[in-house]
Protein backbone atom coordinates (compact mmCIF):
# COMPACT_ATOMS: atom_id res chain seq x y z
CA UNK A 1 0.00 0.00 0.00
CA UNK A 2 2.88 2.35 0.69
CA UNK A 3 4.41 1.79 -2.71
CA UNK A 4 1.06 2.62 -4.31
CA UNK A 5 1.03 5.89 -2.43
CA UNK A 6 4.53 6.81 -3.52
CA UNK A 7 3.90 5.93 -7.17
CA UNK A 8 0.68 7.95 -7.20
CA UNK A 9 2.42 10.88 -5.50
CA UNK A 10 5.18 10.82 -8.11
CA UNK A 11 2.60 10.70 -10.90
CA UNK A 12 0.72 13.62 -9.35
CA UNK A 13 3.81 15.78 -9.05
CA UNK A 14 5.02 14.92 -12.56
CA UNK A 15 1.61 15.58 -14.11
CA UNK A 16 1.31 18.89 -12.26
CA UNK A 17 4.75 19.96 -13.48
CA UNK A 18 3.64 19.08 -17.00
CA UNK A 19 0.43 21.11 -16.50
CA UNK A 20 2.23 24.29 -15.56
CA UNK A 21 4.77 24.03 -18.37
CA UNK A 22 2.50 23.35 -21.35
CA UNK A 23 1.80 25.98 -23.97
CA UNK A 24 -1.38 24.42 -25.35
CA UNK A 25 -4.31 24.57 -22.96
CA UNK A 26 -5.84 21.27 -24.05
CA UNK A 27 -2.56 19.43 -23.44
CA UNK A 28 -2.37 21.04 -20.01
CA UNK A 29 -5.91 19.88 -19.27
CA UNK A 30 -5.03 16.31 -20.24
CA UNK A 31 -2.21 16.35 -17.69
CA UNK A 32 -4.53 18.06 -15.20
CA UNK A 33 -6.96 15.14 -15.43
CA UNK A 34 -4.06 12.75 -14.80
CA UNK A 35 -3.02 14.82 -11.80
CA UNK A 36 -6.50 14.68 -10.31
CA UNK A 37 -6.71 10.94 -10.90
CA UNK A 38 -3.37 10.48 -9.15
CA UNK A 39 -4.58 12.52 -6.19
CA UNK A 40 -7.67 10.30 -6.13
CA UNK A 41 -5.41 7.24 -5.85
CA UNK A 42 -3.60 8.99 -3.00
CA UNK A 43 -6.97 9.45 -1.28
CA UNK A 44 -7.68 5.76 -1.76
CA UNK A 45 -4.40 4.77 -0.15
CA UNK A 46 -5.11 7.21 2.67
CA UNK A 47 -8.30 5.32 3.52
CA UNK A 48 -10.81 7.79 2.04
CA UNK A 49 -12.51 5.91 -0.83
CA UNK A 50 -15.59 8.16 -0.92
CA UNK A 51 -13.39 11.21 -1.38
CA UNK A 52 -11.50 9.42 -4.14
CA UNK A 53 -14.78 8.89 -6.00
CA UNK A 54 -15.77 12.52 -5.47
CA UNK A 55 -12.38 13.67 -6.72
CA UNK A 56 -12.78 11.70 -9.94
CA UNK A 57 -16.40 12.77 -10.48
CA UNK A 58 -16.24 16.43 -9.57
CA UNK A 59 -12.67 17.49 -10.27
CA UNK A 60 -11.64 15.25 -13.16
CA UNK A 61 -15.19 15.12 -14.49
CA UNK A 62 -17.15 18.29 -13.99
CA UNK A 63 -14.59 21.04 -13.50
CA UNK A 64 -12.21 19.98 -16.27
CA UNK A 65 -15.09 19.47 -18.70
CA UNK A 66 -16.34 22.96 -17.82
CA UNK A 67 -12.93 24.46 -18.55
CA UNK A 68 -12.74 22.52 -21.82
CA UNK A 69 -16.15 23.88 -22.84
CA UNK A 70 -15.02 27.43 -22.23
CA UNK A 71 -11.77 26.89 -24.14
CA UNK A 72 -13.74 25.50 -27.05
CA UNK A 73 -16.09 28.49 -26.94
CA UNK A 74 -13.19 30.90 -26.92
CA UNK A 75 -11.00 29.39 -29.60
CA UNK A 76 -13.65 28.19 -32.00
CA UNK A 77 -13.41 31.28 -34.13
CA UNK A 78 -9.67 31.51 -34.55
CA UNK A 79 -8.54 27.90 -34.61
CA UNK A 80 -8.65 26.23 -37.97
CA UNK A 81 -8.88 22.63 -39.06
CA UNK A 82 -5.13 22.15 -39.42
CA UNK A 83 -4.67 23.12 -35.81
CA UNK A 84 -7.25 20.54 -34.79
CA UNK A 85 -5.49 17.97 -36.94
CA UNK A 86 -2.17 18.81 -35.34
CA UNK A 87 -3.70 18.28 -31.92
CA UNK A 88 -4.40 14.63 -32.62
CA UNK A 89 -0.83 13.49 -33.20
CA UNK A 90 0.24 10.55 -31.05
CA UNK A 91 3.15 12.36 -29.42
CA UNK A 92 0.67 14.67 -27.79
CA UNK A 93 -1.36 12.10 -25.93
CA UNK A 94 1.29 9.47 -25.25
CA UNK A 95 2.50 11.32 -22.15
CA UNK A 96 -0.87 11.42 -20.36
CA UNK A 97 -1.57 7.89 -21.56
CA UNK A 98 1.65 6.56 -20.02
CA UNK A 99 1.00 8.26 -16.69
CA UNK A 100 -2.59 7.01 -16.73
CA UNK A 101 -1.30 3.52 -17.42
CA UNK A 102 0.75 3.67 -14.23
CA UNK A 103 -2.45 4.56 -12.36
CA UNK A 104 -4.32 1.72 -14.07
CA UNK A 105 -1.65 -0.73 -12.98
CA UNK A 106 -2.01 0.59 -9.45
CA UNK A 107 -5.79 0.17 -9.63
CA UNK A 108 -5.44 -3.44 -10.71
CA UNK A 109 -2.93 -4.01 -7.93
CA UNK A 110 -5.28 -2.52 -5.34
CA UNK A 111 -8.20 -4.63 -6.58
CA UNK A 112 -6.06 -7.76 -6.31
CA UNK A 113 -5.06 -6.75 -2.80
CA UNK A 114 -8.70 -6.20 -1.85
CA UNK A 115 -9.52 -9.83 -2.69
CA UNK A 116 -7.57 -10.98 0.32
CA UNK A 117 -9.53 -11.17 3.59
CA UNK A 118 -7.09 -8.85 5.33
CA UNK A 119 -7.56 -5.64 7.21
CA UNK A 120 -9.05 -2.62 5.42
CA UNK A 121 -6.98 -0.90 2.79
CA UNK A 122 -5.30 1.59 5.06
CA UNK A 123 -4.69 1.53 8.77
CA UNK A 124 -6.94 4.54 9.26
CA UNK A 125 -9.97 3.65 7.14
CA UNK A 126 -12.90 6.06 7.26
CA UNK A 127 -15.83 4.86 5.19
CA UNK A 128 -18.57 6.87 3.56
CA UNK A 129 -21.07 6.09 6.32
CA UNK A 130 -19.04 7.85 8.98
CA UNK A 131 -18.53 10.80 6.65
CA UNK A 132 -22.25 11.06 5.95
CA UNK A 133 -23.24 10.79 9.59
CA UNK A 134 -20.80 13.51 10.56
CA UNK A 135 -21.70 15.68 7.58
CA UNK A 136 -25.41 15.72 8.40
CA UNK A 137 -24.87 15.72 12.15
CA UNK A 138 -22.53 18.35 13.59
CA UNK A 139 -21.80 19.92 10.20
CA UNK A 140 -25.37 20.56 9.04
CA UNK A 141 -24.79 24.32 9.19
CA UNK A 142 -21.84 23.90 6.86
CA UNK A 143 -23.99 21.95 4.42
CA UNK A 144 -26.53 24.77 4.36
CA UNK A 145 -23.77 27.33 3.86
CA UNK A 146 -22.43 25.24 0.99
CA UNK A 147 -25.89 25.27 -0.55
CA UNK A 148 -26.02 29.06 -0.27
CA UNK A 149 -22.56 29.26 -1.83
CA UNK A 150 -23.60 27.08 -4.76
CA UNK A 151 -26.73 29.18 -5.26
CA UNK A 152 -24.64 32.34 -5.28
CA UNK A 153 -22.27 30.68 -7.74
CA UNK A 154 -25.11 29.81 -10.10
CA UNK A 155 -26.59 33.31 -9.97
CA UNK A 156 -23.17 34.93 -10.33
CA UNK A 157 -22.15 32.78 -13.25
CA UNK A 158 -25.44 33.52 -15.02
CA UNK A 159 -25.16 37.22 -14.35
CA UNK A 160 -21.54 37.45 -15.47
CA UNK A 161 -21.93 35.14 -18.41
CA UNK A 162 -24.77 36.98 -20.10
CA UNK A 163 -23.96 38.36 -23.52
CA UNK A 164 -24.82 42.01 -23.26
CA UNK A 165 -23.62 44.83 -25.40
CA UNK A 166 -22.74 47.27 -22.68
CA UNK A 167 -23.23 47.37 -18.95
CA UNK A 168 -23.68 50.92 -17.72
CA UNK A 169 -24.95 51.71 -14.29
CA UNK A 170 -28.09 53.83 -14.31
CA UNK A 171 -26.40 56.59 -12.33
CA UNK A 172 -23.74 56.89 -15.07
CA UNK A 173 -26.16 57.18 -17.96
CA UNK A 174 -26.06 60.82 -19.01
CA UNK A 175 -28.51 61.32 -21.84
CA UNK A 176 -31.49 59.15 -21.19
CA UNK A 177 -35.15 59.95 -21.80
CA UNK A 178 -36.96 60.95 -18.69
CA UNK A 179 -39.81 58.52 -18.92
CA UNK A 180 -37.53 55.50 -19.32
CA UNK A 181 -35.61 56.59 -16.29
CA UNK A 182 -38.78 56.88 -14.24
CA UNK A 183 -39.93 53.52 -15.56
CA UNK A 184 -36.61 51.95 -14.62
CA UNK A 185 -36.84 53.29 -11.11
Amino acid sequence: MEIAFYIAAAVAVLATIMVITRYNMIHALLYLVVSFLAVAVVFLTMGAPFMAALEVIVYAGAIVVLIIFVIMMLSLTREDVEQEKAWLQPKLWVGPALLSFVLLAELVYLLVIAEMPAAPAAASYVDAKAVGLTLYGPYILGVQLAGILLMAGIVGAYHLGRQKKKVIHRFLQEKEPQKERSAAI
Partner: protein
Amino acid sequence: MTSIPIETGLLLAGVLFMLGLISVMIRRNIIFMLISVEIMLNAAGLAFIVAGSHWAQPDGQIMFIFILTMAAAEVSVGLALILQIYHQLKTLNSDAANFMKG
Protein backbone atom coordinates in the same frame (compact mmCIF):
# COMPACT_ATOMS: atom_id res chain seq x y z
CA MET B 1 -0.33 -3.07 7.63
CA THR B 2 1.71 0.06 7.86
CA SER B 3 0.20 3.40 7.11
CA ILE B 4 1.70 6.31 5.24
CA PRO B 5 3.43 8.79 7.56
CA ILE B 6 1.68 12.11 7.84
CA GLU B 7 4.84 14.02 6.94
CA THR B 8 4.94 12.43 3.49
CA GLY B 9 1.35 13.27 2.72
CA LEU B 10 1.73 16.84 3.90
CA LEU B 11 4.93 17.13 1.87
CA LEU B 12 3.04 16.01 -1.24
CA ALA B 13 0.30 18.56 -0.52
CA GLY B 14 2.90 21.27 -0.03
CA VAL B 15 4.70 20.42 -3.26
CA LEU B 16 1.44 20.48 -5.24
CA PHE B 17 0.45 23.77 -3.62
CA MET B 18 3.82 25.32 -4.43
CA LEU B 19 3.56 24.16 -8.05
CA GLY B 20 0.17 25.84 -8.31
CA LEU B 21 1.49 29.00 -6.71
CA ILE B 22 4.48 29.10 -9.05
CA SER B 23 2.16 28.63 -12.01
CA VAL B 24 -0.07 31.49 -10.86
CA MET B 25 2.95 33.74 -10.70
CA ILE B 26 4.68 32.79 -13.94
CA ARG B 27 1.77 32.37 -16.35
CA ARG B 28 -0.03 35.22 -18.02
CA ASN B 29 -2.80 33.23 -19.68
CA ILE B 30 -5.82 33.76 -17.47
CA ILE B 31 -7.17 30.24 -18.01
CA PHE B 32 -3.84 28.83 -16.82
CA MET B 33 -4.13 30.99 -13.73
CA LEU B 34 -7.58 29.53 -13.04
CA ILE B 35 -6.23 26.00 -13.52
CA SER B 36 -3.43 26.79 -11.07
CA VAL B 37 -5.94 27.96 -8.50
CA GLU B 38 -7.70 24.62 -8.94
CA ILE B 39 -4.39 22.82 -8.32
CA MET B 40 -3.85 24.83 -5.14
CA LEU B 41 -7.37 24.10 -3.88
CA ASN B 42 -6.84 20.41 -4.61
CA ALA B 43 -3.58 20.46 -2.65
CA ALA B 44 -5.32 22.10 0.30
CA GLY B 45 -7.99 19.40 0.21
CA LEU B 46 -5.26 16.77 0.09
CA ALA B 47 -3.77 18.24 3.27
CA PHE B 48 -7.17 17.95 4.98
CA ILE B 49 -7.54 14.34 3.84
CA VAL B 50 -4.05 13.49 5.14
CA ALA B 51 -4.80 15.05 8.51
CA GLY B 52 -8.17 13.32 8.76
CA SER B 53 -6.54 10.03 7.85
CA HIS B 54 -3.88 10.49 10.51
CA TRP B 55 -6.42 10.81 13.32
CA ALA B 56 -8.94 8.44 11.67
CA GLN B 57 -11.69 11.05 11.91
CA PRO B 58 -14.21 11.96 9.17
CA ASP B 59 -13.78 15.69 9.76
CA GLY B 60 -11.01 16.04 7.21
CA GLN B 61 -13.12 14.45 4.51
CA ILE B 62 -15.99 16.80 5.34
CA MET B 63 -13.65 19.75 4.92
CA PHE B 64 -12.67 18.29 1.56
CA ILE B 65 -16.34 18.18 0.55
CA PHE B 66 -16.65 21.86 1.44
CA ILE B 67 -13.47 22.67 -0.52
CA LEU B 68 -14.93 20.74 -3.46
CA THR B 69 -18.14 22.78 -3.29
CA MET B 70 -16.19 26.01 -3.12
CA ALA B 71 -13.99 24.96 -6.04
CA ALA B 72 -17.04 24.18 -8.18
CA ALA B 73 -18.64 27.56 -7.45
CA GLU B 74 -15.31 29.32 -7.97
CA VAL B 75 -14.60 27.75 -11.33
CA SER B 76 -18.08 28.56 -12.66
CA VAL B 77 -17.85 32.22 -11.68
CA GLY B 78 -14.24 32.40 -12.84
CA LEU B 79 -15.06 30.97 -16.24
CA ALA B 80 -17.91 33.44 -16.64
CA LEU B 81 -15.45 36.23 -15.84
CA ILE B 82 -12.99 34.80 -18.38
CA LEU B 83 -15.71 34.82 -21.04
CA GLN B 84 -16.52 38.45 -20.27
CA ILE B 85 -12.83 39.45 -20.32
CA TYR B 86 -12.33 37.69 -23.63
CA HIS B 87 -15.34 39.35 -25.18
CA GLN B 88 -14.29 42.76 -23.93
CA LEU B 89 -10.55 42.61 -24.62
CA LYS B 90 -10.28 39.93 -27.33
CA THR B 91 -7.33 38.37 -25.54
CA LEU B 92 -6.58 36.06 -22.65
CA ASN B 93 -3.56 38.01 -21.46
CA SER B 94 -4.16 38.97 -17.86
CA ASP B 95 -1.92 42.02 -18.21
CA ALA B 96 -4.41 43.49 -20.68
CA ALA B 97 -7.00 43.76 -17.90
CA ASN B 98 -5.07 46.27 -15.82
CA PHE B 99 -7.59 49.08 -16.10
CA MET B 100 -10.94 49.60 -14.44
CA LYS B 101 -12.94 51.52 -16.96
CA GLY B 102 -16.52 51.01 -17.89
